[in-house]
């Protein structure tokens, strides 16, 4: 178990800045997920933590020791790669104990650790096989075993599940979660899959363009996104953004969508004092829109909801739920509902939005207000 601290980390490849001042503070036993679109620098950050790439500026501290100048093997970390990176010429057993052998650990100790790990990951009968003779899921297990056997201070995962099929991915995800629950080792996990990030992480750092957009718990990331990028990136379908303007009267806020008449104003309260703002984005998640007033009244806290007039335009059935596209004053918004409700397409109707779960962003700075 260890802490990981990253101070002002920067990384440049010739002219291009890949990491632009990263600050992170990972507590003992945390499961940090680095989430972001491809090319955002998350894998580079992970490689830099591992020491496989050098940083241009800033510090990396493991257990409060600066490790910038240490070799990867001296940092007491273990790395699980996307391609598993098993040594092709070695058997499963040799793959797992290779790291221990480099560290000149006694044979009895190695055998002990090996059988413990093999049992834990249920790969005992695979030990004499070569990587080429294993299935994707089995290779994944061996790669995990190779990391686990060393009992490192920190585990680093680089999209370890992205080469597996959907079913196996969910299975392995749960196993990683269990593993973290039992071992309580600090873990850093890179992925572009938000479901993986949400379900695994105790903390999530959303990365975009070499910077951390938000570093918070999964709940806060989802419910209180700090920027339009985060709100848009997390959630499927992603958050609706209604363009409009704000007028504020003490803590009572009025939102007027573009092209709307006075009747369409949405009033709500906000914890912060807000300033009048002529261009904001009013964010509401698709599942916080309701078709029935009774439903909205039951679900939302303090019956704090608003009515809006919309026209249903498109219907997408996806099994347990359905996604309806509405037209609202010329803007498109999506709602997610249980598929048991019938919705007539091309009909004008009233829907209800949960005002406890809205996010308001400044349209220019793209930041939460």
């Amino acid at each position: 178990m260890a802490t990981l601290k990253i101070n002002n980390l920067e990384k440049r490849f010739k002219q291009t800045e890949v990491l632009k001042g990263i600050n992170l503070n990972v507590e003992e036993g945390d499961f940090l997920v680095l989430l972001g679109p491809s090319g955002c620098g998350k894998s580079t950050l992970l490689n830099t933590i591992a020491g496989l790439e050098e940083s241009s500026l800033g510090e990396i501290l493991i257990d409060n020791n600066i490790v910038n100048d240490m070799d990867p093997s001296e940092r007491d970390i273990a790395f699980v790669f996307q391609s598993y990176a098993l040594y092709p010429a070695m058997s499963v057993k040799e793959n797992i104990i290779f790291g221990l052998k480099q560290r000149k650990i006694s044979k009895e100790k190695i055998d002990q650790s090996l059988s413990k790990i093999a049992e834990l990951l249920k790969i005992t009968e695979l030990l004499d096989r070569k990587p080429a003779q294993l299935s994707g899921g089995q290779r994944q297990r061996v790669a995990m075993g190779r990391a686990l056997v060393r009992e490192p201070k920190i585990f680093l995962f680089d999209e370890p599940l992205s080469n597996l099929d959907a079913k196996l991915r969910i299975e392995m995800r749960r196993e990683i979660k269990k593993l973290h629950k039992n071992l309580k080792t600090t873990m850093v996990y890179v992925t572009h899959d938000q479901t993986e990030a949400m379900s695994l992480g105790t903390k999530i750092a959303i990365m975009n363009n070499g910077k951390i957009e938000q570093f918070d718990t999964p709940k806060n990331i989802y419910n209180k996104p700090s920027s339009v990028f985060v709100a848009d990136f997390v959630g499927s379908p992603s958050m609706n953004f209604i363009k409009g303007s704000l007028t504020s009267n003490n803590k009572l806020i009025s939102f007027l969508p573009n092209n709307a008449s006075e009747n369409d104003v949405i009033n709500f309260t906000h914890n912060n004092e807000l300033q009048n703002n002529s261009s904001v984005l009013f964010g509401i998640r698709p599942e916080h829109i309701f078709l029935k007033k009774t439903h909205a009244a039951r679900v939302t806290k303090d019956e704090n909801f608003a009515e809006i007039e919309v026209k249903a335009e498109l219907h997408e059935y996806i099994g347990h739920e359905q996604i309806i596209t509405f037209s609202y004053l010329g803007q498109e918004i999506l709602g997610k509902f249980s598929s048991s409700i019938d919705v007539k397409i091309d009909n004008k109707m009233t829907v209800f939005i949960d005002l406890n779960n809205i996010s308001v962003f400044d349209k220019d700075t793209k930041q939460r207000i």
Partner: protein
Amino acid sequence: MLNKKKVSRIFLFLVLGIFVFYYITPLYVMIVTSLKTMNEIREGNLFSLPNSINFESWKIAWSGRGEGTSDVFLKPYFFNSLKIAIPALIISTFLGALNGYALTKWKFKGANLIFLLFLFGTFIPYQAILLPMARTLGFLGISNSPFGLILVHTVYGLGFTTLFFRNYYVSISDEIIKAAKVDGAGFFKIFFKILLPVSLPILVVAVIFQFTQIWNDFLFGVTFSFGENAPLQVALNNMVLTSASVKYYNVDMAAAIMAALPTLIIYVLAGNYFIKGLTAGSVKG
């Protein structure tokens, strides 16, 4: 439809048959002639089979007639060639593998430029390096010795072996190397324990290519060595050109076959791997 297919098949095999015939004929003539006596050669036809199998000319080509100093035979030169080919083969292949490994898995500033220079080296013709090499060997004091030729072949072959191994290792995942670094293995450990064990296909390509180049070389051999230090191909030339008034075609043919035999054997034994290795990169992707 079926008929058309059949006709084109027949045509294909006909063409292939002609090529096979064309390539196999010289070998046939060589073998047949080497087994005949001189009388048979003078009287008979080039393509006719020998009256009896007679290995006398092979014996003469290998160990001579025992007629004193002017007698040239292959045996000592065969071992000269081995003494040159085996060390040069091992050194150039090993260094090529190491170069390929460093150029792909331990990328450093200018790695691509250095690779380009190696690549450039493969385009330099033999003749162009004769003079500078002669000066170098003279300076080092190893001209007309096996060491000189070992050096020449190693240096000349390095461009090719580096190219082979570099292109092979580029297709091997970098993550494997990273994993080994995290596990605590260093430069040489990763090379010997992880990369070399999966290099067999390209190793075979490099060995066949280098062995063929070195064994069949005549120009370097004739330029940088003479007398009893000459390699086999030079001796073969001397033997054929300097025999006395009578031309012993059967002995010449036997000697030529002998000189070509080692490369032939290597191709037959490892040819399958050779094809696999050449296409390894494209298949693995």
